[in-house]
């Protein structure tokens, strides 16, 4: 006899302690797929199938109510798509086949992780690009500063005489201060 599992997720009761509330809301934020899952009663034959259903409906985006996953959406089309995901899992289709099915109908938008292709290269590597630009600028500044430190400072001509005068002035005032202290 196969044990029938449901994808039902129960929200646990919690007491009024604020600490517990805080802990639970942190949990709720970190596990969006679990804590806001819509309650469908799909039956699976194996735990594996149920796990795949969970992860697929967390990774696929609801096309109607944007920024919610299929599992978190109450939208009509999300309900239909969850049913399709369940049907395809039960028919033995692989995750890739199911993703392809969704892609052919709803495009890149359906994936929270869009596929890597020319149109999505900037999306994937844009942050890396900005990081590299920042790193290059940083390294350049650092190297320039190092070079400046390493070079001896050569002062000549007009600036040299002005500098000498300033140093002499400084020494004098120091000497005066020393004398008045004694």
């Amino acid at each position: 006899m196969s044990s029938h599992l449901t994808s039902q997720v129960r929200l646990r009761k919690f007491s009024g302690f604020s600490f517990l509330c805080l802990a639970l809301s942190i949990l709720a934020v970190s596990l969006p797929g679990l804590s806001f899952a819509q309650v469908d009663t799909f039956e699976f034959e194996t735990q594996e199938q149920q796990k795949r259903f969970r992860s697929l409906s967390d990774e696929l985006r609801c096309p109607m109510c944007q920024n919610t996953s299929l599992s978190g959406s109450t939208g009509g089309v999300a309900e239909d798509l969850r049913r399709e995901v369940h049907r395809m899992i039960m028919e033995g289709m692989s995750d890739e086949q199911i993703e392809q099915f969704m892609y052919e109908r709803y495009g890149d938008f359906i994936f929270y992780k869009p596929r890597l292709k020319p149109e999505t290269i900037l999306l994937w590597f844009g942050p890396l690009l900005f990081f590299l630009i920042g790193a290059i600028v940083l390294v350049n500044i650092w190297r320039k500063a190092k070079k400046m430190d390493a070079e001896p400072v050569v002062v000549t001509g007009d600036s040299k005489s002005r500098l000498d005068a300033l140093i002499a002035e400084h020494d004098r005032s120091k000497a005066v201060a020393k004398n008045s202290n004694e």
Partner: protein
Amino acid sequence: MNRSLAFLPVAAFVILALVMWRGLYLDSKELPSMLIDKPMPAFDLTTVDGTSVTNDSLPSEPFLLNVWGSYCLPCLVEHPTFMRLSESGEIPIVGVNYRDQKALALNWLEDNGNPYAFSILDEPGRFGIDLGVYGAPETYLVDSKGVIRYRHVSVLDETVWREVFEPAIAELRAEEAE
């Protein structure tokens, strides 16, 4: 170091600002359809009045495919436009009754008028998935070979008709007349 490099951050800022400026005016709700220039998905269903329909039942000239439901308020907003189009015989309109109930759909057509050559009954929303529908109303422009040429999401009112559909249909008819 090269002095012109000093303008690099300014240039980067300007480019980024332009991209984001454009982003402000993009409608993120309007997703591109994956079915543009693809044939309409195969179907073997019934109409809301129970006659069976397949791809062969589709008009053999350019037509509109309108996704509607009796629960859908924006559909009522665009309905007068479809009524006018069907009365003047401007272009055939095929309906897809999406995620609705047959009885409610029939009532709705009786109350508001029926601009459709026929309405494909899609109670479970399965045909809608094949079309890449994400909610009524949506309207597709399909050519005489059954290839989807354009999709409009949300209300197709007189303004959208005049500014988008009329020119697109004229272009399509000119292309097919060649």
